[in-house]
């Protein structure tokens, strides 16, 4: 990795935005290296969408400097626009056109030429499994299909930097996995992805770096591993049939907290396979009978609780 040589795909310093007296972004600094996935994690109302809107030239910041693909968003917005693709939270498709027409429209606006535009449209329809419905108006499509078309439209011009604003919100698990695979494929091709999400799991699976946004401020920034180290709350819950077994286990794991009423022991752990195996080995070695076992990994609530001191009460409100 030559992280020092390549200029960042996205660079923001001191980003501010207010609507009236409501401060939405209160001094944000971001550096996204080229060819990586960067996740902006936060609850509803944290300022994620506003950040994407500013970085993608949709709205202007009140203060701060932003460069995307080496172009200043204020002085050279068209330079930025030529390099980026945006898939927002609300379907940016033309519902009155067919799927194919939507893609050809994008190709025309990217000035790809008639033949190349049609070729690219056909290729993307196939890639996103939309061939069957391609000739039907998008208004008759399901929400998941519209989402896939939305992303396909973003990819028409082969943008080098792609913004995905909550790309999997409201998707079923299968579509979510498809979306994740698309993101991984894009990064393998050297594309930079800036995504926002409410799900720690999603950021963890996709992103090289995660920034946690809360009330317009970045409260943490780092690799998923770094971030998880900041977050207590992950543990393995061991349940026992009787008090004797539990006492033995409690001596084995002095750091564990006990729940005498339900004969359970909470052993701090990151919940990974390695940690589990070693835990089971220790139990086996000490000949302790365990009645039940469950793993609890840290989630966004834990992140927010530990980083901000308040729970993410708004999660799932939208």
């Amino acid at each position, binding site marked *: 990795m030559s992280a020092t040589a390549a200029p960042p795909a996205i660079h923001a310093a001191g980003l501010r935005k207010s*609507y009236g007296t409501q401060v939405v972004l209160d001094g944000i600094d971001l550096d996204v290296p080229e060819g990586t996935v960067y996740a902006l994690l936060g609850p509803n109302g944290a300022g994620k969408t506003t950040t994407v809107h500013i970085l*993608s*030239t*949709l*709205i*202007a910041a009140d203060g701060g400097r932003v460069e995307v693909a080496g172009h200043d968003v204020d002085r050279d917005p*068209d*330079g930025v*626009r*030529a390099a*980026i693709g*945006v898939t*927002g939270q*609300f*379907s*940016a*498709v*033309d*519902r*009155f*056109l067919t799927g194919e*027409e939507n893609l050809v*429209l994008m190709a*025309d*606006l*990217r*000035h790809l030429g008639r033949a190349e535009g049609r070729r690219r449209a056909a290729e993307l329809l196939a890639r996103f499994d939309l061939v069957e419905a391609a000739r039907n*108006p998008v208004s008759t499509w399901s929400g998941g299909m519209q989402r896939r078309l939305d992303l396909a*439209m973003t990819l028409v011009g082969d943008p080098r930097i792609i913004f995905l604003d909550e790309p999997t919100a409201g998707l079923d698990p299968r579509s979510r996995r498809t979306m994740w695979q698309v993101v991984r494929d894009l990064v393998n091709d050297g594309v930079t992805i800036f995504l926002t999400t409410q799900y720690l799991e999603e950021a963890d699976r996709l992103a090289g770096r995660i920034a946690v946004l809360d009330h317009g401020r970045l409260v943490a920034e780092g690799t998923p591993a770094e971030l998880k180290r900041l977050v207590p709350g992950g543990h393995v819950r061991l349940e026992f049939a009787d008090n004797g077994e539990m006492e033995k286990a409690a001596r084995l794991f002095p750091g564990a907290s006990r729940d005498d009423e339900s004969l359970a022991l909470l052993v701090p752990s990151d919940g990974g396979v390695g940690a589990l195996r070693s835990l089971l080995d220790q139990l086996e070695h000490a000949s302790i009978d365990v009645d039940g076992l469950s793993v609890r990994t840290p989630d966004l609530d834990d992140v927010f609780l530990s980083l901000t001191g308040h729970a993410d009460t708004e999660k799932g409100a939208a």
Partner: protein
Amino acid sequence: MTANAHVLSDSATMLRRNLRHMQRYPSLTLFMIGIPVVLLLLFVFVFGGTLGAGLGGVSGGRDRYLAYLVPGILLLTVATAAQGTAISVAMDMTEGIVARFRTMAISRASVLTGHVVGSVIQTALALVVVMGVALLIGFRPTTGPLAWVAAAGLLALTSLALTWLSVALGMSTRSVETASNLPMFLMLLLFLGSGFVPTQTMPDGLRWFAENQPFTPIIETLRGLLLGTPIGDSGVIAVAWCGAISLVGFLWARRLYEREPAHR
């Protein structure tokens, strides 16, 4: 700039998009043609006998009123089409795709130009149908082809002016309902002019207003071009009004499009 190099091709792309919308969802277009046709028939066959008698002269009656009414109905067609434009622009601005256009390196004017040119084409179509119905029920222009071409030119100019104005009106609202009501004042303005009855029959204050509002010189010029009545300086005033309304509508619409989308 790279984006401005493609003004024409981007505008053509947007025009194709708008024409496809109209073709796929023709109900708005049919409505825009239906209203003036119904009003034409209503005024000629229900009110026409009485109103025609009021115009004076010997031949009198329904045919005379038909000849008097047609220029006003043509302008009503343009105004109805403008209302349709405001509705479709307001609808379009609520679509996510317009937000996507804003993040793409395309000519900013092209989204609006596509709407305007599409609407003018739609209006021309409506005018042809309305004129066809008028001819069918006995309207007979008394002038030559050159005057007809001039009349078509003036209608195109009027359509351009009202379309830019309604594009701006459509964008200035956040809801489609408001947008559909805004151009109603155009309809009202039409009735407060020389389109349906001569202004001489109105009380003084109203008459002054009717003679100095933009629609009256346009109607008087059309009447002159189609029926050979005296035009006077109405022609110049009509063209000046069209130019002024176009410019205001264009500048207003462009400013509204540059405006940041609402915070949601």
